[in-house]
């Protein structure tokens, strides 16, 4: 306050100057569930893994043979396979700075990485701590027929729920494209994210019951992948018939829908992810390009 008493040459006094806080406000970022604060709903404060909670779901209700096989057999095989002596982490393509000397660059966002729009991750050598693992399977079903008649999406959702044992989420169109009859906010399919036991159960049915019965199936394309260890392939409606949940109730599913499967791994690179997926029984094939 002592500064206020000092007279300055400037016409506007210091006290009336507009200041601003450099500290970011945080109070909007903390979500508080107000219901849980009071005593009115005591069951909301019970954790989900407690049997008294209404959200309790029993976890280990059957033997998970895929996970056991991975833990007991594959992990050590993969550790040996990926071992490279004296290897170091390969740094990814990172965002660059604008240089230290320009005052305009102080709060500016970093420059994009060279030749790319996004930074890539470092590729670390495989140790017992980061052996590649299948973390999830995401299934995307794009339903073109639902664009015209939205009730058609109900059977697509039920089909996915039957196959995966997980309730699918509805997907909506994001943009307007007139020639495709795509309108913003319209139902256009559904998706499912599988993890844990649902994932391993789905994987075992896919590998043991479905894929071996598809006559034309050669495998997943060797070029498939998003460069960071997630591999995708698709199944057509004729191939979905072989899922036992669909096959035994064919009259209930008159129209079937194909979908895309993405195997999400923490392998880091596609090559590592491919090796991991072959160990779980998924075949790969190399495309032969036409030579003229």
């Amino acid at each position: 306050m002592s500064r206020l008493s000092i007279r300055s040459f400037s016409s506007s006094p210091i006290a009336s100057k507009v200041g601003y806080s450099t500290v970011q406000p945080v109070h909007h970022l903390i979500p508080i569930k107000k219901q849980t604060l009071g005593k009115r709903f005591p069951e909301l404060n019970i954790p989900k893994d407690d049997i008294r909670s209404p959200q309790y779901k029993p976890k280990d209700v059957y033997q998970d043979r895929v996970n056991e096989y991975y833990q007991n057999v594959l992990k050590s095989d993969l550790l040996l396979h990926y071992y490279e002596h004296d290897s170091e982490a390969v740094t990814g393509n990172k965002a660059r700075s604008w240089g230290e000397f320009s005052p305009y660059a102080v709060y500016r966002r970093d420059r994009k990485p060279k030749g790319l729009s996004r930074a890539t991750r470092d590729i670390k050598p495989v140790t017992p701590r980061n052996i590649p693992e299948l973390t999830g399977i995401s299934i995307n079903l794009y339903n073109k027929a639902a664009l015209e008649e939205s009730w058609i999406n109900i059977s697509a959702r039920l089909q996915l729920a039957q196959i995966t044992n997980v309730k699918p989420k509805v997907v909506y169109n994001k943009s307007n494209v007139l020639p495709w009859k795509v309108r913003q906010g319209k139902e256009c399919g559904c998706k499912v994210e599988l993890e844990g036991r649902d994932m391993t159960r789905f994987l075992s049915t896919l590998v043991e019951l479905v894929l071996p019965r598809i006559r034309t199936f050669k495998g997943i394309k060797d070029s498939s992948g998003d460069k960071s260890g997630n591999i995708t392939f698709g199944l057509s409606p004729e191939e979905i018939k072989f899922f036992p949940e669909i096959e035994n109730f064919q009259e209930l599913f008159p129209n079937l829908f194909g979908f895309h499967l993405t195997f999400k791994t923490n392998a880091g690179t596609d090559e590592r992810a491919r090796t991991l997926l072959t160990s779980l029984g998924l075949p790969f094939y190399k495309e032969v390009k036409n030579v003229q």
Partner: protein
Amino acid sequence: MRINSVNASTQRVVNQLSALSASKKQPKLLNLCKEDLIKHKTITNAWNVYQRKVNEKRHIQLNAQYKSIHEAMEDLKQTSPQLYALANKPEKKKKFPLDMRMPTDYPPTKPWVYNYEPSQKRK
């Protein structure tokens, strides 16, 4: 006006929708007595302890394996640099054989193939 009957295809869609909705499938909340609750908690805790022990065992074994691989390679590097170079060559495109499958709940009728030959011969 109330519609009592709908045509078959509409009824099928209605049935499908009711199969998707969770309202009827939600099981009743269990009201356990104190003794049952204690039993349940004891069993769950014991299971968690067992799982932790198993995980620790696996972790120790993998670390030991990694250490022994490292030591062997270090040894090979000293004794024979040529063999070391061959051994340390990364096999990025190598795949697991399709014949290697995850074990099933029950053993197959023919448990072991003695004169095994790989099904696909690679070039």
